[in-house]
C-alpha cells in the first residue's frame, strides 16, 4: 500500500510498530507506533494521557509527511 501510493506520486508516511519490516519492504518515511495489538494508542494509560499520546503520534506523522527525506528515514523521538 505504502509503495503503491508513493508510486502514484502521493507523499506517504508509514506508521508502524515493527519498523524493521517497514525498512525491509523499503518504505521511506517511517514513524514508530506503540505496539502491535495497539499501534496508535495504549490501553494501559488513562483517557487523558492516551489522548495526548495519540495526538502526539498523529502530529509527528503529519510533520514527517511534510519532511523531505533522502532515502529511508525512521522518525525516532
Amino acid at each position: 500500500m505504502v509503495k503503491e501510493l508513493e508510486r502514484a506520486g502521493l507523499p506517504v508516511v508509514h506508521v508502524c510498530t515493527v519498523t524493521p519490516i517497514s525498512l525491509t519492504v523499503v518504505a521511506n518515511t517511517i514513524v514508530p507506533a506503540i505496539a502491535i495489538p495497539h499501534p496508535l494508542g495504549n490501553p494501559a494509560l488513562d483517557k487523558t494521557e492516551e489522548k495526548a499520546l495519540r495526538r502526539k503520534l498523529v502530529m509527528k506523522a503529519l510533520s514527517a509527511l511534510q519532511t523531505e527525506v533522502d532515502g529511508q528515514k525512521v522518525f525516532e523521538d
Partner: protein
Amino acid sequence: MRLELGKINITDIRFAKESKIEQGVLYIDPDYLKPVVLEDEKIRDVVFDIAKPGESVRITPVKDVIEPRVKVEGRGGVFPGWTSKVDTVGSGRTLALKGMAVVTAGKIVGFQEGIIDMTGTGAKYTPFSKTLNLCMVCEPVEGLKQHDYEAAVRKAGFRVAAKIGELARGLEADEICVYETCGIREGIEKYPDLPRVAYVSMLQTQGLLHDTYVYGVDAKQIIPTILSPTEIMDGAVVSGNCVSACDKNPTYIHQNNPVVEDLFAQHGKTLNFVCQIITNENVYLADKERSSNMTAKLCRMLDLDGVVVTQEGFGNPDTDLIMNCKKIEAEGVKTVIVTDEYAGRDGKSQSLADADAAADAVVTGGNANEVVVLPKLDKVIGTLDYVNRIAGASEDTLRPDGTLEVELQVITGATNEMGFGTLSAR
C-alpha cells in the same frame, strides 16, 4: 545436568471404577480426576472423554495437549510453578506416559483454538491423531472473563496430567533414556574437537492469550536466559496459547521437543550440546530489540559455534526470528532457523514477513495456508459451533455435506516449527 526419562508405554485408556495403570492400560475413574479440576472455583463442571487413533472423532476447539509425567527422583516436581514449587527441575528421574495425552478442549475464545481429527485427512497432519487422548471439556462459572477462563483451563490441564502421572509412581519403565549435558569447562575438556552448539527456543508471548510460561512466569516478562534442555522435560516451559493452532507448541511438544531430542542424539558424537536458550516474541519493538540483543550476547559469551533457532507462530514474530538470526550470525555463530510459511493458498506469496541475507539456512514446517478438506466425522468432542470462525477457516468452511474446507492453520501441530510434524520442503 543428568535426567533419566523412564517411558511407560500406554496401549489403551478405559474408564473404570478404579484409576490405575496395569499392563500398559490406563484405567481412569472420572471421579478421580474431577475434584482436581473443580478445586478451581472458576470451573463449574468438566466432562471427560476418550479419543483413540483411527476413531471417527473430531476434537475442537483444542486448547492444549499435555503428556502426563511424574518425578520420582531428584529435585522438584513436574510443571514447576503450577503443580509443584519452583525448585530447579531437569535432574534425577522422571516417568512419562508414552502414547497418550491429556487434551483440554471446549470453547474459550472459540476462534483461537484448534482441531484434532483422529481419522481421515486431518489425522495425517496432526501429531495428536496418533496418541490416545483423554479429553477434558471444562465449563466455566457464569460471567467468567475469557482470560480468567483460559488460565483456569490451562492450570486444570496441568493438574490432571500430574494426577494421572502419579499413577505411574512405583511402576517399572519399559525403556529408560538418559539425557546429560556438561558444565562449560567440562564440555570444553571432554569434547575439545566438537563444535559447541546450543538451541535457541523462541516462545510465543504476544499477550491476549498468546502466552508461554517458564517456571510459572509469564515469558513476556523474561529476559532471555539459559536452561538445561532437561528442564523442559519436567515441564519447566508450558503453553498458554493455541492460535493459529498449526504452529503453536502445545505443552506436549515442549516436553518432547524434537530439536532437543535430536541434538542430544548427536551430543558427544558430532557436536557438544551446550544448552537451551529461551527468548520471547513480544509486541513492543524495544522488547524485540532487547531480547534479540541478549540472545546474541549469550551465544557469544557461551563461545558457541552454531545454534538452531525455532520460532513459534508467524507474522510479527518473523521479525524476532530474523533479528535473532542476523545478530547471532554477526557474533560469528552460525545459525539454522526453523519456521513455517504463510505463502498463500497457492503457495506463491512471500513466506515470511521479514527476511535477511544472514538467514541462509532455513527449515520449513510447511505452508499453513494450504487448503484441505476434512471429512464429516461421527463424533465431536467439544463443539462445532466455532469451526467457521477458527483462525484458518472462513464462513464457508462447514459445507452442507458436513465436510470442512480449511487451511492447515486450524489443525493443531500441522506445521509445527520445532519439526514435530511431518511437513517440510526441499
